[in-house]
């Protein structure tokens, strides 16, 4: 099955859109892409799992790692995992990933970046 991590923008924030199965074989790609994204020092990033069709414990572990790296980098993370996407949302809920990974139900729930008042 095809897998890719695409650099996109969600709610004005730099984002990674994950397509295909996020598992032991593919999750290193997400980890790598997230690291690259965080290295630019963004205020926040989004991982969009809307088009992801499968998530296993390795994928979950990668999300946790991304959350920890984002926190360390001072970047706000949002993971979009719609409730309607059962194959992805169910393991997230079973593992209670929400305890460490900010999970939102849709891209609309990701707040727009705070306006930098000094620049206006």
């Amino acid at each position: 099955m095809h897998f890719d991590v695409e650099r996109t923008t969600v709610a004005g924030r730099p984002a990674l859109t994950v397509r295909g199965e996020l598992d032991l074989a593919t999750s290193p790609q997400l980890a790598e892409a997230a690291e690259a994204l965080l290295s630019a020092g963004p205020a926040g990033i989004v991982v969009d799992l809307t088009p992801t069709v499968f998530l296993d414990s390795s994928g979950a572990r990668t999300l946790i790692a991304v959350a920890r790296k984002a926190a360390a980098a001072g970047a706000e993370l949002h993971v979009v995992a719609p409730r309607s996407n059962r194959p992805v949302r169910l393991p997230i809920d079973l593992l209670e990933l929400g305890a460490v990974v900010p999970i939102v139900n849709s891209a609309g729930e990701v707040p727009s970046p705070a306006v930098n008042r000094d620049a206006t």
Partner: protein
Amino acid sequence: MTSPAAGPAPTVDDEALARCADEPIAVPGAVQPHGVLLAVREPDLAVVVASGNAADLFGGPVAGRGLDELLDPADAGRLRAGLAGDLAELNPLRVRVRAAGGEVDLVVHRADGLLVTEWEPVRGAEEAGIAWHRRLPTVLQRLAASATLDELSAVLARDVRALTGFDRVMVYRFDPEWNGEVIAEDRRADLEPFLGLWFPAGDIPAQARALYETNWMRLIPDAGYRPVPLEPATVGRRPLDLSGAMLRSVSPVHLEYLANMGVRASMSISLVDRGKLWGLIACHHYAGPHRPSYTDRTAAEFLGRTASLLLPTKVVAGDQGGVVEVAQRQAELAAVVGRTPRGLAAALTDGEVTALGLVPAAGVAVRLGGQLHLAGTTPPAERVGPLVRDLLAAGVRATDAVSRVLPAAADLAATASGVLVAEVAGGRGDYLAWFRPETLREITWGGNPYTSKTAQTDAGPRLSPRRSFDAWSETVRERSQPWLDHEVAAARSLAALLTETAANRATEDNRLATALQRTLLLEQLPEVPGVDLAARYLPSADDVVGGDWYDLVPLPGGRVSVVLGDVAGHGLAAAAITAQLRHALRAHLLRAAGPAAALDGLNEVIGALLPGELATAVVAELDPATGEVVIANAGHLPVLHATAGATEYLHEGRGPALGLLDAAGYREIRLTLAGDDRLLLVSDGLVERGRGGLSAGLDDLRAAVAGGPVTPQALADAVLAALDPPRTDDVTLLALART
């Protein structure tokens, strides 16, 4: 010869063939009449043997006379000077013979202890002239620049014809059975083309071919000539050896053959590849007798020798077509082997890069670890093993004609006329085999090669060349494209890689399996009074060690903890973590007050000792005496509770996966197992990869348990059969009931 299985039986008379093979072509005792042969003694150069036409050239008998006498003093001096050095540099010596009234090309060589001198009058010979010789460097450059064998042959045919003026010049290539194929041709426009025709091996008998390897040039200026006998007929007791003589009279059979083709004059130049006769430049003239000058013939022979030197690279280039592609596939397959720890045979037949792509073939069989996998078009599976075994027993590893080795396999010709086998060592009878289908090859013979070969003469049947020269075609059956050397080598090297890999993996597998058994799984479930427990563990097909573990921990007071856990990740690293977690949880279960506290303890262990790791676990603590069950769940799939009336997942008493939070604060759910109630604990490998994903898998599991047998052993088997999980992950299932 390429005798077709479906062709007519050869009707050549064996006796006549044997007679032809015996024909003394090197010592015919006669020469052709376009020159004179004198064999002289050294050093006085007195004539010992002379051809019968010598008197005509020299104006009188020559027997007993010396060459000093027959030549001008100046020419005689040049001859004697040349005899002291390399004779090849002397030839030809253009001399004046007074009686002949003109110039003669004198060519000498030594044979039978004599100096054989051949005298060919210049008059009557065709000269290409100086213009052509000036072009020689260009011609040589063209030969050298030709990239392919076809190009080289075409240049050769064209330039030899331009040089010698023959009506037709062909380049023949011999096949392994000595049939000749015309691979290039330059001809008078009105002549019927022979390009692509095949000439049967019998057209050039073996002793002629042997002669052609040493004597590169033959000329018959007039095929209708009358042979001129040598006098005396023998030197000592034997006829003079004429194998090196340009005037050597040829076999009457050959002359008859030429006459049948309407050829009046013929010349041939050998093409020799690394010491072995490879082909011929064959020149035919039809209009009448034709005799290129000695100089032009020498130039033509020079082109033949130059082409011969160029042959190895061109032939190799032709035979090695695809060598780069094959090498690339070889590398890709090696990578596949390297990254495929399990199920190699399947990977080599089903993956993106398969063994089928290694060499051009229609099908492949990969037998590894005793398992046969087929890809592409192959014989039926049940025939592949015996076919390969019989070929190996016959000592054949590559053939383009299986039915010749194994007549019983002729019915497989459509899929396996050609088979290439490479054995994978290791004593398991493993192998790789590639199959090529029958290639119906149309061969157009220059005349029917099987008939009209013998003619009745007074002396009994004698070989007579084919009367009819009409093209006669046949279809070669039960033959495939031949296997090239580099293809065979690539097959063997893949087999060798698999041999090595299999040996390494066997060792590694044993080690891992032992570790797995020792640390993760229970060799035998302990007997716990009042508890009936069934456990099933299926390792993943891809990876010998997954992250699942289960445990049964008897506690003080008769209670028992049943544990099922799963560490994220695979491989040895996951196995090591799994082992640590299993032992840590055991310790906490024995010490702690209940499952939730034990999981809290385990969570602290991960946070402190294994940061970044993620695991899930569920613990069910059962008191067999009362049926009371306490369950705590750390991010694991919910426990399934089946009663006589309902089968439901227990969504209470859950908490986050182990390793997520520093302090998880797990909760518990309590229930009582009554009568036939059962609990099922499963790992995600059972349910997450089915069609419809995890949630459908959980639904299927519930349905299977609701409709399944009551006893844990039967239930576990029924659930595995019903869900039939793909073996991409390891699968663990625990079924629990009271007795």
